[in-house]
């Protein structure tokens, strides 16, 4: 087993357990700042492959801690911020980050503005993918909401406009449109995945990722059928660029890859009598060029992965919820079987999951989950998993979360 920084986990969990699970309020004159937080500690164990950490030996490198505050200092205005730290395998490593920090002004129900570091909407879970409290499953469908990609997917530095409109007997429409810059760490999940695709050092080395502009929108149609909503989102990352250093005999020198990444997602959710049905489809495309640092183009590059899932959960009692989903991820929509590639099983990952959530108290939950997986398309670690095939394998997860 590989417990990482167990003192931090234990201290955070103990602090939360001792908090009596009540929000902290801080009086600032006539105004009140409210504080909320959560601490999650997980465990992963798998057969055959190391996934999301060194899971074959059993791994406790799977946790999140968040503390947020919000205050409404003026009419129609709210300021909110969250500090966050997490660890998933070799990503996160308890680095403390300012997850979001924004000021929001709501003109009316139809129009509002939020600026600063803001959560980026995308489907049902993108803006809440690290909130274990907000779902039945421990692991969301990983081809869509990869636990290692949160620096790419969750927050941007920029602005967002939001609002909703009644459609009369046709339900209601809500929207969020955003633009801003992503800040990707050289140690982050996207960096690790790009690094995994490079020739081994010293021939190639990962140098970093530039700040990239992203813009997009999320629309939700809350239909006249109570509990049924339909969503569409889309956008583009502009000039996403990463850099590689090249050593002799092919160097010394530097190369970069510069791509545009348009993406789109459709979502359907229906909640009724404790049942929740969800299905989503997501795809993105990278198109651009590999080039020398001086701008000389070496070769065009492109890829188009896609992923879908269907899931169902049921709240059986106030303390027990069961859920299940099935998801398929493909690295290349034009070659879903990986025909002709060095490792065909890297072309896909198909995952059937069964989850149980226990709400032990109002502020303490515990989850158990099993996965049967075929394919290795999301392992993203050739070093830990040098031999891969399409035989089925198992992943077991457990997680507990305290909140206030």
């Amino acid at each position: 087993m590989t417990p990482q920084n167990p003192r931090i986990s234990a201290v955070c969990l103990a602090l939360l357990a001792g908090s009596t699970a009540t929000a902290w309020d801080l009086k600032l004159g006539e105004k009140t700042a409210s504080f909320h937080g959560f601490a999650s500690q997980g465990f992963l164990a798998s057969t055959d492959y190391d996934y999301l950490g060194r899971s074959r030996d059993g791994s406790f490198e799977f946790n999140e801690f968040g503390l947020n505050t919000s205050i409404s200092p003026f009419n129609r205005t709210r300021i909110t911020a969250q500090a966050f730290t997490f660890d998933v395998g070799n990503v996160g490593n308890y680095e403390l980050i300012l997850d979001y920090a924004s000021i929001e002004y709501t003109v009316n129900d139809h129009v509002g503005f939020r600026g600063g570091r803001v959560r980026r909407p995308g489907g049902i879970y993108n803006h809440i993918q690290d909130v274990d409290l907000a779902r039945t499953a421990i692991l969301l469908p990983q081809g869509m909401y990869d636990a290692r990609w949160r620096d790419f997917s969750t927050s941007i530095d920029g602005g967002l406009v939001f609002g909703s409109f009644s459609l009369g007997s046709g339900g209601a429409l809500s929207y969020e449109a955003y633009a801003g810059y992503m800040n990707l760490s050289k140690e982050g999940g996207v960096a690790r995945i790009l690094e995994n695709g490079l020739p081994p050092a010293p021939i190639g080395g990962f140098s970093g990722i530039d700040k990239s502009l992203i813009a997009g929108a999320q629309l939700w149609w809350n239909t006249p059928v109570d509990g049924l909503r339909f969503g569409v989102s889309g956008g583009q990352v502009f000039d996403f660029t990463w850099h590689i250093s090249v050593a002799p005999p092919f160097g010394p020198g530097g190369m970069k890859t510069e791509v545009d990444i348009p993406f789109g997602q459709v979502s359907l959710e229906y909640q009724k009598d404790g049942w929740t049905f969800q299905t989503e489809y997501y795809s993105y495309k990278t198109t651009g060029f590999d080039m020398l640092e001086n701008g000389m183009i070496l070769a065009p590059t492109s890829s188009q992965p896609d992923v879908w899932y269907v899931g169902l959960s049921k709240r059986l009692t106030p303390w027990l919820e069961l859920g299940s989903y099935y998801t398929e991820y493909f690295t290349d929509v034009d070659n879903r079987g990986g025909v002709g590639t060095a490792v065909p099983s890297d072309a896909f990952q198909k995952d059937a999951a069964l989850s149980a959530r226990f709400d032990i108290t109002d502020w303490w939950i515990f989850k158990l989950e099993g996965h049967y997986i075929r394919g290795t398309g999301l392992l993203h670690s050739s070093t830990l998993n040098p031999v891969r095939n399409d035989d089925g394998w198992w992943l077991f997860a457990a997680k507990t979360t305290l909140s206030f």
Partner: protein
Amino acid sequence: MKRHILFPGLFALLSVLSCVALDGVVVVNEAVPATQLTAGALKDILTGKTMYWDGGAAINIVTAGEKADAALEQASGMTPSAFKTHWQRLAFSGRGQPPKKADDAAKALALVASTKGAIAILPAGSDTKGAKSLAIQ
């Protein structure tokens, strides 16, 4: 011909069902300007779609314990667990201020009385002294 009779009848039945009186009493802080709400406006507040009163003061939702769960479910359209999950989603993504929890109607009433912009649904027949009762249309 039967179809023409069936559909207006069905809509009338649905309208009647949707207008069933709330099995609880809605109270707000005395400083809240509203004197009445439609069921739709109350649902928008409870789901976080409307976060400010007319005039711009922030809405602070207070929950009143298990005895008020049925009325809260009736007004919000969400089971208690779905309501809780919904607000956790909003709170931890920086999109909303989650409801303040009170153990029972008396404590919720006291919280509403002392918190600007507060609103709570209490079990039917609860004491409302110190707060303002809202009519739900």
